[in-house]
């Protein structure tokens, strides 16, 4: 029962360096509730800067509030919803909001910020299977 890298680790996208890993992130807290969302975003940027691949950022539980287009904090540079959208448009990062967690909290397609998509919990598991590492923020 020793740790083994997943079998697909040798197959890598050309843009990533030889030692690059695939990361998946899980965000569990709302942007105004907790620093977790800001920490996850900073980690995401730093991992891309180092040439790692960000397989997916999955938003679950209160984390679904990160995708709420209607959220408008007074200081726009601290608007984490915008900052996540920017990450998606600049770097093509896949930002997925859990459909059932979103439904429970009123997050729908109609109020979804650009760059996010709503999908099933299976997308988290799929990311977990593909990725070399899963890092959770706001546990």
């Amino acid at each position, binding site marked *: 029962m020793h740790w083994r890298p997943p079998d697909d680790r040798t197959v890598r996208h050309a843009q990533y360096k030889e030692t690059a890993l695939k990361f998946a992130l899980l965000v569990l807290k709302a942007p105004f509730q907790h620093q977790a969302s800001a920490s996850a975003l900073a*980690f995401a940027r730093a991992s891309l800067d180092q040439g790692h691949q960000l397989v997916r950022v999955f938003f679950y539980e209160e984390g679904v509030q990160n995708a709420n287009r209607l959220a408008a904090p007074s200081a726009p540079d601290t608007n984490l919803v915008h900052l996540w959208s920017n990450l998606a448009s600049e770097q093509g990062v896949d930002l997925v909001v859990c459909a059932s967690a979103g439904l429970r909290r009123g997050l729908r397609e109609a109020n979804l910020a650009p760059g996010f998509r709503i999908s099933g919990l299976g997308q988290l598991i799929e990311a977990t299977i593909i990725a070399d590492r899963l*890092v959770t923020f706001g546990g």
Partner: protein
Amino acid sequence: MNKPLPALHIVNKSPFAASSLEQCLQRLAVGDSLLLIEDAVYAAITEEIWDGLRTQPNKPARILALSPDLCQRGLADKSLAEGIEQVDYAGFVELVTTHNPIHSW
């Protein structure tokens, strides 16, 4: 790569407000490291917090505190408790590559 990697334990709550640091320290395996982020960096500047560590079965191989979070809390100039290193987000990413699993408490 057949050898298992040590785990990285991430704590994000103040040791004065929550038990998660203490509960994490009780579950370290030999060679595991500990990263303090967000309000857990308050632990990094408090020597007494670590006194109890002597009674824990396993000490972390390394204890690190996230420097931007220290900075944001005005603690950048404070001396850290003995043996605690500062690390930035690049270092955080590096730690994630050299450890697995990544265990957020």
